[in-house]
């Protein structure tokens, strides 16, 4: 263990390093080259700082670590309360891991208004980390909303043709949904007088919240709607394909890699943490929705002519697994869900980067305009295959572990869910491999594709870490899972009690 002062400050540090960088960039002169390097440096600094977390994390220990709790605003009683457990720690690291890659991948593709781009990117990083480390509901909401604007601007300014439509749609969907969460948070505050997650949790479990019995279901829904839109869960997913297709590569990477996890993380932390009973009662239809999401996402992905849209729909499908795992209320399910979050972050992030690389060369995502790309771009094809396989869930790669755990959890909860969910794995193999085949194999159908340059050094540097991470996560999942486990156990504790109550009756 390091010095206690560093432990107290490390989360703040990790959170605000990117913001500090962004502020510096604001006043910096408009020299694109230096700005890129500076942004890379800042994001790397953030990544290395965040490595402090897993290194010194007490893995066996449940509960929150690195806690920092200072009063911020006296009325209402808002605290600057941060802390992480095994789940959120990895999400923080995932964020800081992906950001430098985003910087790298945007090196050339962003050439207009470079300064603003990196400012927005770094602000977004701060907000994302903030979401995962906040233990004060208010602080959480604060960061949650703060992710919106930089993301919307990234899509809207740097995106493709229909960027404005996509940005507005993204903004409105999430904005409207999170307003419900705000209402629920306000209600909790009005009744308990605090925003502190732990305090509210204790109050609810102790039955000290007046009117909770009646309002509980609505509160659950309030939170759930906000998270479900973010995930996105089946009927409210329509913003996602648009946002992904129109976003610049870095935007897509962070969107798929981290932003969607905010939703599942929220479900895990708040829906399960605060409303175990309501979660249990609502689990049935949520799981059904999740399964619909898995299958629907996969089926739609299969027929997509657009590469990026395909990956986007695959995200819907994968995130369905996460929700399925979370609402199975089993150790395996939750472990798996958390792991899928991380794995999906890495592999889908990488997929979007790869798609972006192709786009830089051809300025289209249309699958039909490729074909036989493996010939001119062998290294690229190799990376793509590797990541595709990881995403499909090939054993010994990262996708497999999580999906396996989720499915076993789902089987424990109810066999039919597990069985239906398992079809998703097959579907994903179908559409991803079919896509791979269409893009890379066969003859080169368009002559322009013949002269496509292969990956350059910068792109390789951006891709290697994801490939390595995918491999390590597949080979040694315990490195991650041993930290996740205690956290999941804590999260499941009330469900065990509930179950025993049911049994006792």
């Amino acid at each position: 263990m390091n010095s206690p002062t560093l432990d107290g400050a490390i989360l703040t540090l990790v959170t605000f390093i990117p913001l500090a960088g962004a502020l510096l960039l604001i006043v910096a002169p408009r020299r694109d080259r230096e700005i890129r390097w500076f942004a890379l440096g800042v994001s790397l600094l953030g990544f290395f700082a965040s490595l402090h977390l897993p290194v010194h994390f007490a893995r066996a220990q449940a509960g929150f670590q690195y806690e920092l709790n200072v009063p911020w605003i006296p009325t209402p009683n808002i605290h600057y309360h941060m802390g992480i457990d095994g789940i959120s720690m990895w999400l923080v690291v995932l964020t800081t891991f992906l950001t430098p890659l985003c910087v790298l991948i945007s090196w050339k593709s962003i050439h207009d208004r470079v300064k603003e781009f990196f400012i927005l990117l770094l602000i977004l990083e701060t907000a994302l980390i903030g979401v995962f480390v906040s233990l004060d509901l208010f602080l959480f909401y604060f960061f949650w909303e703060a992710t919106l604007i930089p993301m919307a601007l990234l899509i809207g300014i740097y995106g493709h043709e229909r960027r404005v439509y996509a940005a507005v749609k993204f903004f409105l969907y999430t904005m409207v949904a999170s307003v419900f969460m705000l209402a629920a948070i306000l209600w909790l505050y009005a009744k308990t007088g605090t925003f502190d997650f732990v305090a509210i949790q204790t109050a609810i479990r102790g039955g000290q919240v007046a009117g909770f019995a009646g309002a509980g279901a609505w509160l659950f829904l309030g939170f759930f709607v906000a998270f479900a839109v973010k995930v996105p869960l089946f009927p409210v997913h329509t913003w996602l394909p648009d946002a992904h297709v129109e976003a610049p590569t870095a935007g897509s990477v962070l969107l798929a890699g981290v932003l969607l996890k905010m939703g599942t993380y929220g479900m895990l932390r708040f829906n399960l943490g605060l409303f175990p009973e309501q979660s249990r009662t609502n689990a049935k239809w949520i799981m059904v929705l999740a399964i619909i999401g898995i299958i629907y996402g996969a089926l739609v992905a299969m027929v997509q002519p657009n590469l990026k849209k395909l990956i986007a729909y695959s995200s819907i499908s994968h995130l369905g697994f996460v929700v399925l795992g979370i609402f199975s209320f089993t150790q395996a399910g939750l472990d798996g869900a958390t792991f899928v979050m991380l794995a999906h972050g890495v592999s889908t992030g990488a997929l979007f980067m790869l798609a972006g690389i192709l786009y830089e060369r051809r300025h289209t995502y249309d699958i039909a305009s490729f074909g036989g790309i493996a010939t001119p771009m062998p290294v690229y094809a190799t990376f793509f295959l590797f990541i595709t396989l990881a995403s499909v869930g090939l054993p010994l790669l990262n996708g497999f572990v999580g999906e396996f755990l989720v499915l076993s959890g789902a089987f424990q909860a109810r066999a039919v869910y597990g069985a239906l969910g398992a079809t998703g794995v097959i579907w994903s193999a179908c559409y991803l491999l079919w896509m791979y085949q269409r893009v890379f194999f066969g003859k080169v159908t368009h002559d322009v594709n013949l002269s496509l340059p292969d990956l350059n050094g910068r792109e390789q540097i951006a891709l290697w870490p994801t490939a390595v991470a995918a491999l390590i996560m597949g080979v040694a999942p315990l490195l991650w899972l041993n930290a996740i486990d205690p956290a999941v156990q804590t999260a499941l504790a009330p469900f065990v009690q509930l179950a025993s109550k049911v049994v006792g009756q």
Partner: protein
Amino acid sequence: MTPSTLQTLPQGIEYVRILPEIVLSAFGIVIMLLDPLVDQRRSSRMLGTIALIGSLAAIAASQYQTQCPPGTAFWDMVRVDAFSIFFHIVVTTVTAVVILTSFEYMDVQQLHAGEYYALVLFGAVGMCLMSSAVELVLIFIALEISSISTYILAGYRRRVAISSESSVKYFLLGSFATAFFLYGVALMFGATGSTSIAKIGETLNAGPVPLLAYVAIALMFVGLGFKVAAAPFHIWTPDVYEGAPAPIVGFMSTAPKAAVFAVLLRVLFEAHAPGRLWLIWVVAALSMTLGNIGALVQDNIKRLLAYSSIAHAGYLLVAFAALPSSGIPAAMFYTAAYAAMNVGCFAVISHFASAGERRVTLEDYAGLGRRSPILAATLTLFLLSLIGIPITGGFFAKFYVFSAALQADLVGLTVIGVLNSAVGAYYYLRVIVMMYMREPREETPVAPIPFGLGAALAISGFATLYLGLLPGRVLEYARSAAALLR
């Protein structure tokens, strides 16, 4: 009532209790007197500077009031306590910002500066007085001072037809509303035999509330509702805002509203006005909904912000429906935040619209992010605050209001409000989208930001962020002030 003896005169401290008003009027008169003496070409700059000094002196005077013991003055006509000082500071600060914004505007529009600045200061006198008055007739006169000066200012661009039209509409509907307010005062006088708010409160608390008092409150509410542009008394707002000079719209959409809300707070809470809840409930819900729906289809940014101000009046009224302990501070905080962000918005607009107020459609804002990054960034900040995004004052404002409503178990109203703020996000976003994501049709250059406007933007931007990051102090102050009111 027997007339008191004429021998007693007001004490010294009583003059301190109207010090901001005295300072503002004195500077207004100085400007009027200097106007014919100074060179016409440089008058705008010079008189503007004097007006600015005047408003700063008024801010200082309001600050000085905090040093003095609270109390009443002029035989219970005004009461200066934390509550009034809060609104004094809001009003005087807005006045200063508006004057800063006007420097350039007056030059560009070639308007005569003397009366303009004097009217702004005199209007501020009325608004300050409104927030400290505890007697209905004085409130009425103060209301008229602020209204009449804004009627005139709205029509200040006399050569332009829409400015005069805006003025005449504002004038007719405003006077109409005033008449309602006055009738309410008369009936309240009839119901309780007094026009002093404290005495009215005593009387209404003491015995059964006469039917007349309900009617009186309703009529007064109608009158004041007109002034704050609450639905269904809002129809004048878009027209007036569209036609009036942009800095003045910034002025009249914030300072008089703040003052009228102060009056409403006093009348409704201190006078223990009967049967206020359902009335406010309906008006708040209507204002939020109509304002937001109206704003959705607007293409003129001034009209858009007019509808938005209707919606914000609705949000603010939600706080009125809540319990006094949390509702009053929430309303006060909202007033301050709203003043900061709205006056900032109009500062940007008044600069961008330039001569003749030509560039006021949303289309004109296309590509502003590229053409003038600072202008676009500040406008974005204010718009985000109007949406209610965290780290801006608008967020905490909404937050306090809705949590106050929830504490009073007004779940329905809160849900309406929350849904509305989600709807509202759309049209503010349209502006931001225009600025950053659309290419302009023609690359007309945007004039560089002059010093005065820069200062105005800095002040309002700082206030917006300050209220968004460290709302604690302001809220604590509002809370202590609200405790005095009850």
